[in-house]
């Protein structure tokens, strides 16, 4: 980069141009065969049983419900059980605009979810405020909780949300150190 900013190993060369890679996840250092194989198995089980929280904020929730229903049927990914309690869920889909009053509620729900937990920011409002650039809304839910996958759209089609879930599955599968973290081994 001409301005001297160094992106380290995240920069790659494509067609003679320097591009910043999409950030990868987990631990780059090699681990033992047993632990990585176990990681792989645990990740595989986790990614095929992502249970979302029954949590809708606005119109995006309609598309989220549509994704859960029979036409799009996320039971194909083992994710059809929308849990009513955050203590039983792995994924919170922020489906709609986040009002300032709702922000602490979202934070508490997210904190009540057991690890491992993931967050999908669904739609323009949850990701950036969208058209509602005003005092009433939190401009991007990542000011309140950390987001794993952003889905654009207003609202996104169920297919777009399914695409986000497949991205999330990829991310879960690539996670390293799962077993060590679960067993609390340093």
């Amino acid at each position, binding site marked *: 980069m001409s301005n001297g900013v160094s992106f380290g190993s995240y920069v790659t060369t494509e067609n003679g141009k320097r591009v910043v890679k*999409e950030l990868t996840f987990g631990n780059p250092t090699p681990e033992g065969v047993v632990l990585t194989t176990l990681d792989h198995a645990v990740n595989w089980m986790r990614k095929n049983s992502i249970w979302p929280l029954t949590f809708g904020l606005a119109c995006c929730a309609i598309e989220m419900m549509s994704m859960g229903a029979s*036409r*799009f049927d996320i039971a194909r990914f083992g994710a059809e059980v929308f849990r009513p309690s955050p203590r039983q869920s792995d994924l919170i889909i922020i489906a709609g605009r986040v009002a300032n009053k709702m922000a602490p509620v979202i934070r508490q729900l997210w904190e009540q979810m057991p690890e491992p937990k993931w967050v999908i920011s669904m739609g*323009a409002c949850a*990701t950036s405020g969208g058209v509602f650039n005003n005092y009433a809304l939190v401009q991007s839910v990542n000011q309140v909780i950390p987001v794993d996958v952003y*889905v654009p*759209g207003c609202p996104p089609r169920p297919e*777009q949300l399914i695409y986000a879930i497949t991205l999330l599955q990829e991310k879960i599968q690539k996670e390293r150190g799962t077993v060590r973290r679960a067993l609390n081994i340093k």
Partner: protein
Amino acid sequence: MPVLKNIAAIAKGMSITFREMLAPTVVENYPDGPGPLKGAKVQERYRGVHVLQRDENGLEKCVACFLCAAACPSNCIYIEAAENTAEHRVSGAERYAKVYNIDYNRCIFCGYCVEACPTDAITHGHGFEVAAFSASNLVYRKEQMLAPMPAHMGANAVFNQEEVEAGAPAMVAPGE
């Protein structure tokens, strides 16, 4: 005979169960389906990721008039205009969009930009696979949205501004 009545009721209910069990599934098999859309079914009018069109000479239709950015209700379009020159011709008119970014974090796919465009340069495609792990990856640049070159111009020869600035021959419309 209440027993017979109960059996009849159960048989009636189960007949629906077994009939539906044998019927073909109606689920939209999105990521595992055939075709470029992977089994997703969208209407022709569906407004997906924008496509910046080219004219029949392979020049960009966008003339950097900023009408799309003005029409955008969420202010997600960012344009930097530049002048065309004889050696470096990008669009058919005087100016072209040197930078054309659409922030898909904010875009609500309303289609007002498409309605506003006087040269039909910006259109909605059917792309919908745009989720990302990082919000900064959702700001699409011109190169990501530009339509491929028309077939007679060499469909693979995508215009690259940096290459032209580095000395590669710029694309010139026939007759110039």
